[in-house]
């Protein structure tokens, strides 16, 4: 009988009780405290925004799954993640109808077009955000301060704009609250356009003052640490992003401290932490090779700082991640790990045994090919 001695199969070799649904469900769990904090900051407007955007994502997913052309199911929670993340990246007073447009575009254009879960090239939430950024540039740049009195009973007026209509002016509403228009600017915009620098420790907790910021970076890091500890997310990507952003910002700060802000401000302002922990780590759109993850993360960190410093936009995390998403197949290609036995420079290792004899190859797959000769020692030992 021609029974192979060792059967060689392709990965995965180890099975675990970890399905797509489990991973996605735990990501949703870890996002819930962040959403709760967001509602605590901005009250009923933030709650409405989260609900409407997520509902829009789910309904769009329902429609496309119903057409039978999609991978994935409605119950795999991926559309919920897209909706929650998208809502967290939008300003709290973003008109609900625009939020719904963003959610529909995120799932339809960002995911369904490519064939559903696992096939998308770009992070769906960021595709939705990029679309509304281009479509409604004024509304998406209008932030309001957090922790306003009466935020649980009163909507931010721009939230309740009629569909297709211009939202109410936020500056006029802030005036009735005895706050000037500058109070509604994000720390990054304040630094970029007015040269006002916020403290890093205030940014880390998001708690002091009426800053126009998203949920606390400290909380996001804790939730991300939970995911990384449960191995639902690879820790390399966020670490690479934050490391490379900090390094770039620190080098520039060391070069000219009057022109560039300190690296801590760069790390904790804007959406960098949220992007690094939740958006860049999307499994379908990031490289799978460990080396590739470092390259991918470093690219995002570098691009974010460059866009923030040298472009007309105050925030650059979204475009940095989208660019890196586009680059990740290439990154994967150049960071393929060296298979066991190949050694450095394709030379066979000394004194190593090579089980890749054609006779061992499983005949299970019709397309199984004989390995190249160079895996085998070139000369027989004398």
């Amino acid at each position, binding site marked *: 009988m021609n029974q192979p001695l060792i059967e060689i199969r392709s990965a995965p070799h180890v099975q675990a009780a970890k399905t797509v649904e489990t991973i996605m469900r735990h990501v949703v769990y870890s996002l819930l405290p962040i959403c709760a904090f967001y509602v605590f900051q901005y009250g009923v407007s933030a709650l409405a925004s989260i609900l409407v955007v997520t509902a829009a994502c789910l309904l769009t997913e329902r429609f496309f799954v119903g057409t039978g052309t999609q991978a994935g199911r409605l119950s795999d929670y991926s559309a919920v993640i897209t909706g929650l993340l998208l809502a967290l990246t939008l300003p709290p007073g973003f008109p609900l109808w625009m939020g719904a447009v963003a959610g529909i575009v995120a799932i339809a254009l960002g995911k369904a077009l490519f064939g559903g879960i696992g096939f998308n090239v770009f992070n769906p939430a960021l595709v939705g955000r990029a679309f509304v950024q*281009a*479509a*409604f540039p004024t509304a998406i740049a209008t932030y309001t301060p957090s922790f306003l009195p009466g935020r649980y009973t009163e909507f931010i007026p721009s939230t309740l704009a*009629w569909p*297709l*209509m*211009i*939202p109410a002016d936020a500056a006029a509403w802030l005036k009735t609250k005895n706050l000037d228009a500058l109070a509604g600017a994000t720390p990054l915009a304040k630094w970029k356009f007015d040269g006002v620098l916020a403290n890093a420790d205030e940014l880390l907790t998001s708690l002091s003052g009426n800053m126009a910021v998203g949920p606390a970076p400290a909380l996001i890091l804790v939730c991300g640490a939970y995911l990384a500890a449960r191995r639902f997310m690879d820790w390399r990507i966020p670490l690479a992003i934050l490391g490379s952003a900090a390094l770039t910002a620190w080098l520039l700060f060391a070069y000219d401290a009057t022109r560039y802000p300190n690296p801590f401000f760069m790390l904790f302002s804007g959406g960098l932490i949220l992007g690094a922990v939740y958006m860049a780590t999307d499994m379908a759109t990031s490289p799978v090779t460990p080396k590739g993850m470092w390259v991918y993360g470093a690219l995002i960190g570098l691009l974010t700082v460059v866009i923030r410093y040298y472009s007309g936009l105050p925030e650059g995390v979204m475009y940095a991640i989208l660019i890196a998403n586009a680059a990740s197949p290439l990154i994967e290609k150049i960071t393929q790990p060296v298979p066991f036995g190949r050694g450095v420079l394709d030379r066979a290792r000394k004194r190593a045994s090579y089980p890749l004899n054609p006779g061992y190859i499983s005949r299970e797959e019709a397309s199984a090919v004989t390995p190249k000769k160079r895996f085998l020692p070139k000369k027989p030992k004398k």
Partner: protein
Amino acid sequence: MNTATTWDDFMEGIWRQNPVFVMVLGMCPTLAVTVSAVNSISMGLATLFVLVCSCGLVSLLRKLVPKEVRIAVYIVIIATFVTAVDYAIQAISLALYDALGAFIQLIVVNCIILGRAEAHAAKNPPLSAMVNAAGMGIGFVIGLLALGVVREILGAGTLFGVSLFGAEFQPWVIMVLPPGGFFVLGGWLLLFSWHARRKQRKQSAKLGEVTQNA
């Protein structure tokens, strides 16, 4: 000449071989000038005029022109009519002329026209050639209008310059930018391919029934 074939010649460009949605030709003006419905219609009519006239002339000259130089002759014929249209639009409305920009002159290199001249007009009598060209031209107008209407409604809240939603309308800036053209074209293509797929599925289901019964 048979009326049925004339009708087929005419309808070919409008539906079965629509230059925008089926052949995906002439994408340059399709994406660039369809910011508003008026621009789309004028661009489409200009192309229609050039298409019909040049196809008629090419068809008349089809036995005189040597094969080796036919493309050069077609280009000269097309360029003549394009120049006429160019000056006519400039005389009628300078604002429209500015809005359409270089795309009027670029009708010369529009592959719909050269394609029609080469594929149909050079092989058929003038009447058939002009009917076919008119169908193609109308199909092109319909294609441009389909894009222009959607982009104008979303991008400016108006249709043919008439406000639809009042002064409070929030324009979708992206729709008047180049990405908007791609999105809307993609949406229409999606709709048509969905329709074609459904039709095919119905037909094959019917065919299956027939074979089962037989």
